[in-house]
């Protein structure tokens, strides 16, 4: 070995050692920063998990998962409630329309009655004139005149009463019809809207509740993943210590080779063996450096991956569930309020229907009384007719006019009978209407909405629990947000530091180039130098400081040409072997 080559090679190797020192220092500093970041991240991750655990506990404590079934019951009950009232309202409109037709018929009846009353009054006047004309002979007809006068008054009074009431009912019925004609489309619209909103809200709530209900599972999974990532960082950081030792061993080897190259005393075979020792040493260090580069890349990548994993998991969905569910709870509560409002409207409608029912009841009472009076009047008219006919036949030709009056009474009696039958028919119709209104009332009654009330109570309780859990989740989510923000800062710091480690690869590559150059120079001067290898001495000498099996495997591969060992770092670390 020439002295020029000696000094050049030694200088190259010293520079390589200096570069390796830089790598050692840089990795040492970087790992210190990374460890600080990691400890901070782990602390914040722990706080995040505690906050998330509190959310999970609250979710489980409040039985949030049962809210959905309550809300679904409410949806079904509300649909049934509105549907029933929709049907009943249609029925009421039909009933009211029928009542209006009935009132028109009653008006015709009262018109006929008024006409009959007027005709009886005329017959009374004729009878009085005839009684005066007949003198003593017609005294028996004074009773008939009196009866007709009295009957006319009673009939007029009853007819007036019926007319007044019928007119009142016409007005009230028209109002009811108008009201329900407006109410029906409104109820239809409400039903459609409730269907639509409830379906949308239920779908959203289901999604939110599923997320919230999954929180415990998600939390446990996150906790497990974070725990795994932390364990991964613990292992990867130890990887640094292993490479530190390996770099130190390369430094020591380069120092030893440098010293061997600088020894200029030997000659002949002895010198060739020293050159061979240096050449083999350089070949081994090249392999070791390549393995070190791969190992640093491996643990740097694992530290980076695990720290990123901690950040990612910690910032995952748990913090966002609260606001999401709270928003859905608000929407659902608004639906509940809307249903309550609708319920109140239906209750007000129920009052209006009760008014309609009372009106019809009064009408049926009045028509019933009127019918009784009509039947009594019909009997009296018949009696008057018989009496007047008998008296008139007893008087003979003198009572021709009375016979005409008797015929008039007979005609009125027939007409009155018809009117009485019409009143009876009206009464039956009124009773039928009353029955239909009663049925509608049953639908609108409180008892029918019990199922809705129960569903509302359950939903209210469920939504209160949901509100409590989601409000708590929102508050916890904000705290988680603060933790994850701090973690993001540490993550950025860790990322910057990882960037520094990347620069180590370039420096190791530079060292590799220097060592390979030194080796090439030896090969150029001694092309057959491999033939002078004393493998046993070389292995013993260079492996003396080795502390890992990986280093020994690399040495053997470089020295004996066996396959380079595949990088096998235990990702989860090694177990304890107890003696």
């Amino acid at each position, binding site marked *: 070995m020439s002295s020029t080559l000696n000094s050049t090679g030694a200088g190259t190797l010293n520079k390589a050692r200096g570069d390796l020192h830089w790598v050692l220092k840089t990795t*040492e500093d970087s*790992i*210190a920063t990374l*460890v600080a970041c990691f*400890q901070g991240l*782990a602390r914040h991750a722990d706080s995040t998990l505690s906050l998330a655990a509190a959310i999970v506990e609250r979710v489980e404590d409040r039985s949030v998962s049962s809210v959905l079934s309550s809300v679904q019951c409410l949806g079904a009950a509300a649909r049934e409630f509105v549907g029933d009232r929709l049907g009943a309202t249609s029925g009421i409109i039909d009933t009211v329309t029928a009542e209006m037709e009935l009132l028109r018929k009653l008006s015709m009846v009262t018109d006929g009655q008024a006409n009959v009353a007027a005709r009886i009054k005329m017959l009374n006047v004729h009878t009085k004139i005839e009684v005066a004309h007949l003198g003593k002979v017609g005294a028996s007809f004074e009773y008939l005149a009196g009866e007709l006068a009295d009957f006319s008054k009673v009939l007029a009074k009853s007819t007036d009463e019926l007319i007044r009431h019928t007119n009142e009912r016409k007005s009230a019925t028209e109002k009811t019809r108008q009201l329900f004609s407006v109410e029906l489309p409104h109820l239809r619209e409400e039903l459609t809207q409730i269907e639509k909103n409830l379906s949308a809200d239920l779908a959203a709530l289901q999604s939110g509740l599923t997320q919230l209900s999954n929180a415990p599972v998600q939390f446990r999974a996150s906790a497990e993943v974070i725990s795994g990532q*932390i*364990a991964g960082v*613990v*292992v*990867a*950081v*130890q*990887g*640094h*210590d*292993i490479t*530190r*030792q390996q770099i130190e061993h390369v430094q020591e080897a380069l120092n030893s080779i440098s010293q061997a190259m600088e020894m200029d005393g030997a000659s002949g075979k002895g010198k060739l063996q020293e050159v061979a020792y240096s050449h083999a040493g350089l070949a081994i260090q090249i392999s070791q450096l390549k393995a070190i580069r791969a190992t640093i890349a491996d643990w740097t990548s694992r530290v980076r991956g695990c720290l990123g994993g901690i950040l990612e998991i910690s910032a995952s969905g748990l913090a966002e569930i609260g606001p999401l569910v709270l928003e859905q709870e608000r929407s659902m509560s608004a639906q509940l309020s809307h249903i309550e409002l609708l319920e109140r409207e239906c209750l007000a409608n129920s009052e209006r229907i009760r008014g309609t029912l009372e009106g019809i009841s009064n009408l049926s009472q009045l028509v019933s009384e009127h019918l009784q009076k009509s039947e009594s009047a019909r009997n009296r008219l018949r009696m008057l007719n018989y009496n007047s006919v008998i008296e008139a036949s007893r008087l003979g030709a003198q009572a021709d006019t009375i016979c005409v009056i008797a015929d008039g009474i007979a005609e009125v009696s027939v007409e009155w009978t018809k009117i009485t039958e019409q009143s009876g028919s009206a009464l039956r119709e009124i009773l039928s209407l009353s029955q239909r209104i009663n049925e509608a009332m049953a639908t609108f009654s409180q008892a029918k909405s019990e199922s809705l009330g129960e569903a509302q109570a359950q939903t209210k309780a469920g939504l209160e629990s949901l509100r409590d859990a989601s409000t708590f989740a929102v508050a916890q989510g904000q705290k988680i947000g603060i933790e994850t923000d701090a973690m993001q800062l540490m993550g950025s710091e860790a990322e910057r530091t990882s960037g520094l480690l990347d620069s180590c690869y370039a420096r190791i590559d530079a060292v590799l180039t220097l060592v390979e150059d030194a080796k090439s120079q030896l090969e150029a001067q001694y092309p057959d130098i491999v033939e002078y290898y004393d493998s046993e001495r070389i292995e013993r000498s260079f492996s003396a400081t080795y*502390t*890992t*099996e990986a280093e020994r495997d690399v040495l053997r591969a470089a020295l004996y040409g066996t396959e380079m060992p595949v990088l096998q*770092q*235990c990702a*989860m*670390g*090694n*177990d*304890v*072997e*107890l*003696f």
Partner: protein
Amino acid sequence: MKRILTVDDSTSVRQMVSFTLQNAGYEVAEAVDGKDGLAKVGAGKFDLIITDLNMPNVDGIQLITAVRKLPGYSFVPILMLSTESQADKKDEGRRAGATGWIVKPFNAEQLVAVVQKLVK
């Protein structure tokens, strides 16, 4: 609270041992090499010691040997934590009085489980 001493010339390894065991509820003291470790053992009582093998000044084997001679430390568990995995090194450790051997890198969960078992 049980006290554990971790002895290693590598700051990062000491930090990882401390982090792992502190999270498991132990009080952990650190020593930078065997000499420092012996000083710490002399100054206070520990329920378990975890030591590296290759360290400047006093190495792991020397530390164990010295600790075993101290009063009250005959049965205190001592775990070796080293990159070495050779059987002869492990034998040397056992003969010196080590309770167990862990090849770096250690598995955090396993380490905690064994420490819990040893310092009950």
